[in-house]
């Protein structure tokens, strides 16, 4: 063993630097299933506290839905716990194939391949389809997993200002000589809850002969009239070349992700995507539960409709209460506070009021853009939303920020 004092001291100082900078992420222990009401042990060692959860990606409230849990039990009973294999050796069951076909149908694509996570899907897909004679042209605010995936790919990397279509067009003009070009974006951006202009992106892609890749993790299951995702919301269903998405958010929230698109690309991912080839298969319990989730949301849009209503209600009420929010229609509602300490202090006070929310600041968001990110769920009832709004109002009054805009909050608290 050669874990020297020198190494130990180095790692300790790295950690203490994070504590000092306020960037150390502490985990809270939840002692109940994921839901609108949860029981949390925080700080560690304290008695569990009942709080309302407003920071989960449980958009459709399906994480602990009885039918989903039942389907998971059935999967465990009929197909066992683990597969002890990657997909291509002896890790593919009939239910994996069934889920991949269902996902293709739901997303409106030709074929789908499951990955252990959407992080893995994004880490693997670019290197499979693009080489050094190609160009990746990405929005600057794409998710970290896409950034990592692009770094693993040899294609030339270009990026455009967030959702700026003129800048994207400039980059498309700059890369005319490349063999293949791919425009890469999130469908919904996770920190702002804003939606990629997929209609405009598809138009530019056609004009300049580029492919389009969308990570729709924060949209699959509820964006668009039938919940198919951002492409449905933007009226370009069937016009996105590659969609990556997750089973870890609206679709039951366990884990797993996928690459969905043309058959050739999906087949190549099965042959060449390293995170797919070298990760264990997604376990049967998740597969049978995810199959049930797709059935539930294909049968009725009730849950996505309720989420839409809840979101509209919360956005309206929180705005009339005097908060400065990022406008939009998505269930991610950023409450802008600009100052990192203010965001942290308010999130802590909200917790005391029984509302679990998290403050985000640099480097997760740009400097001077600190916020509390609220996430609405179809699992929330109106009284949950009212309780959260009342708590926000009480805490907002304490910090005297109600009715104040960006300039005034910065004047009071600084960046």
């Amino acid at each position: 063993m050669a874990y020297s004092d020198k190494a130990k001291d180095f790692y300790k100082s790295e950690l203490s630097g994070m504590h000092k900078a306020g960037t150390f992420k502490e985990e809270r222990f939840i002692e109940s299933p994921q839901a609108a009401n949860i029981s949390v042990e925080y700080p560690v060692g304290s008695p569990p506290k009942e709080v309302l959860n407003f920071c989960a990606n449980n958009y459709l409230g399906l994480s602990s839905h009885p039918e989903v849990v039942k389907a998971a039990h059935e999967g465990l009973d009929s197909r066992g716990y683990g597969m002890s294999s990657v997909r291509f050796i002896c890790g593919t069951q009939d239910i994996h194939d069934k889920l991949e076909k269902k996902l293709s149908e739901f997303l409106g694509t030709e074929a789908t391949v499951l990955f252990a996570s959407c992080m893995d899907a994004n880490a693997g897909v670019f290197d499979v389809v693009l080489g050094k004679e190609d160009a990746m042209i990405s929005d600057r605010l794409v998710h970290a997993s896409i950034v990592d995936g692009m770094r693993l790919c040899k294609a030339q990397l270009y990026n455009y200002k967030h959702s700026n279509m003129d800048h994207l067009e400039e980059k498309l003009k700059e890369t005319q000589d490349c063999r293949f070009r791919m425009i890469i974006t999130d469908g919904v951006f996770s920190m702002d809850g804003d939606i990629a202009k997929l209609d405009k992106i598809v138009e530019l892609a056609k004009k300049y002969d580029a492919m389009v890749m969308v990570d729709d993790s924060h949209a699959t299951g509820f964006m668009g009239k039938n919940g198919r995702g951002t492409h449905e919301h933007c009226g370009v269903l069937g016009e996105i070349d590659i969609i990556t998405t997750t089973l870890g958010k609206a679709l039951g929230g366990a884990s797993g992700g996928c690459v969905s698109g043309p058959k050739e690309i999906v087949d190549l991912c099965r042959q060449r995507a390293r995170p797919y080839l070298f990760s264990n298969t997604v376990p049967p319990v998740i597969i049978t539960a995810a199959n049930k989730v797709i059935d539930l949301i294909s049968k009725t849009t009730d849950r996505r409709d309720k989420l839409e209503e809840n979101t509209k209600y919360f956005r309206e009420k929180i705005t009339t209460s005097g908060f400065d929010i990022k406008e939009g229609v998505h269930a991610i509602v950023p409450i802008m506070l600009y100052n990192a300490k203010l965001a942290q202090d308010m999130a802590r006070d909200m917790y005391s009021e029984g509302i679990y929310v998290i403050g985000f600041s640099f480097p997760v968001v740009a400097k001077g853009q600190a916020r509390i990110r609220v996430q609405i769920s179809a699992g929330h009832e109106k009284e949950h939303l009212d309780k959260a709004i009342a708590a926000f109002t009480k805490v907002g009054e304490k910090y005297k920020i109600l009715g104040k805009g960006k300039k005034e909050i910065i004047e009071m608290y600084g960046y």
Partner: protein
Amino acid sequence: MSEETKNLIIDYVKKEYLEEEDEQEVDENTPLISSGIVDSFSMVSLKMFLEKKFSVKIPDEKATTEAFDSVNNIMDLLKEFNVR
């Protein structure tokens, strides 16, 4: 190094990284990376611009966040490649 080179880089930074509504001023001493104007992911455009414009190849080990943290630092880096 010429005033012209400096202004060329400043203009590129403004055009490439700032939005029209940004009130941020950029001069040769403005921190670019540590201020968040340019994040490490977007730095690649700046590197590519410098390489094309001045016909140089900046090796990855020289393209550090420190070397790109201000127009002055970038000019110091370019001097190593005899850009005037």
